């Protein structure tokens, strides 16, 4: 019995607990100091075009969370059998298959929204975050770590998307998730009674860029280590 116990202990030593400090860092790091959008400059294409409404931003964030989490695990499981010369094509096929699943699910359960997102669901395939994480992390690490890394990065991406979507919808149309929170602009209730007007400019695409620029400004002035020279 003593021997068995000893053996078990030996086996256990190299194994990290599922949520060790290092693993937790994989999730929390991309949320702030290593954010995919504001620091790594990845995945901006799709981030900006669909953030005029909070709902679309949330759906996009969840889709990327699914694709990146599952894709990272799949690539990580296959990492030893993918020939390095054709790995880009293999990665693209894995992502494309996952994105097709997301697209079909959205078409089945949220048709209006999938119309609104139009080609941008398809563009998750070429979202640089996904290829970037596959290349930089999943090809070199085990499935569980890759999963955490995928979830963390997708969450970091999603947070920026949701912040941008929140401000653009709130200031642009005075609603959140389609619910009027500032009162009725036609009946002149709530804030509108005081003469407040919606800023329609927030709904136009250039404002997404400027909002992200401002987020970067805030983030970097809070953390001086991130400042570029």
């Amino acid at each position, binding site marked *: 019995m003593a021997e068995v116990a000893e053996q078990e202990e030996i086996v256990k030593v190299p194994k990290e607990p599922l949520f060790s400090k290092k693993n937790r860092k994989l999730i929390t790091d991309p949320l702030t100091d290593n954010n995919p959008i504001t620091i790594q400059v990845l995945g901006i294409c799709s981030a900006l075009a669909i953030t005029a409404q909070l709902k679309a931003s949330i759906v996009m964030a969840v889709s990327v969370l699914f694709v990146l989490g599952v894709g990272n695990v799949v690539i990580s499981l296959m990492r030893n059998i993918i020939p390095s010369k054709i790995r880009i*094509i293999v990665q693209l096929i894995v992502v494309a298959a996952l994105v097709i699943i997301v697209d079909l699910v959205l078409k089945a359960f949220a048709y209006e929204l999938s119309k609104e997102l139009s080609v941008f669901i*398809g563009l998750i395939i070429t979202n640089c975050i996904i290829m970037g994480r596959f290349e930089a992390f999943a090809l070199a690490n085990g499935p569980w770590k890759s999963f955490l890394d995928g979830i963390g990065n997708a969450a970091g991406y999603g947070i920026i998307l949701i912040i941008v979507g929140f401000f653009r919808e709130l200031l642009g149309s005075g609603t959140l998730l389609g619910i009027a929170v500032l009162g009725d602009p036609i009946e002149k209730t709530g804030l509108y009674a005081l003469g407040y007007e919606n800023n329609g400019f927030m709904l136009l*695409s*250039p404002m997404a*860029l400027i909002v992200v620029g*401002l987020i970067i*400004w805030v983030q970097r*002035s809070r953390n001086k280590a991130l*400042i570029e020279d």
Partner: protein
Amino acid sequence: MEHLELFFKSIFIDNMVFATFLGMCSYLAVSKKVSTAIGLGAAVIFVLAVTVPLNWLLDQYVLREGALAWLGPEYASYDLSFLSFIMFIATIATMVQLVEIVVEKFSPSLYNSLGIFLPLIAVNCAILGGSLFMQSRDIATLGLALNYGVSSGIGWFLAILAIAAIREKIRYSSVPAPLRGLGITFILTGLMAIGFMSFGGMLTGGDEGNAKPSTEQVENTKKIEQDVKKLAKEKEAVELKTALNQ
């Protein structure tokens, strides 16, 4: 005329960077110097000009509902459009590889100037976006598809050239420290996009305006119609009255 309209529309009004934010990753990453920006821009024009017409053929003759009719009547009901993502991206990835090999073989100087950018382009959203927009906008002919590919590539080229030039100059101005680099580039792109929005008036009465009048317009026309009807009724009544009086 149709060609000219699509050409200017894709360069200025539906500019890939400023209107739809496609290819932003490489746009931000490779725009530090004008010379590299020109290299990447040229490569994007080139690859778009090859892949958009190719994917148009694929869409028309393989993927679209009823596209397989040329194989025989029993295939006419197939709709493979759910496969379009995977087919488009496979076409793009293989085309990029092929183009790389061919260019390396026949024109080493061009290969050297495009350099590392060619493989990078396979995962550029602008390329896949070009094909997906081609599909969703129902581009009608192969010629128009080629035109669309080239002109949206030129639009992307112009955008990256402009931002690279600005970034080279802005190094000498005193930007607030936290905004330096990425932050100011975002804001600059936003301002440029606002500038590009003014091109929207260039083609008034384009297909978009005719296809989808805004709800406001619809309501206005409805009101006007109602007013006209009312007036007509009143006129009739007045005429009747005068007739009765006589």
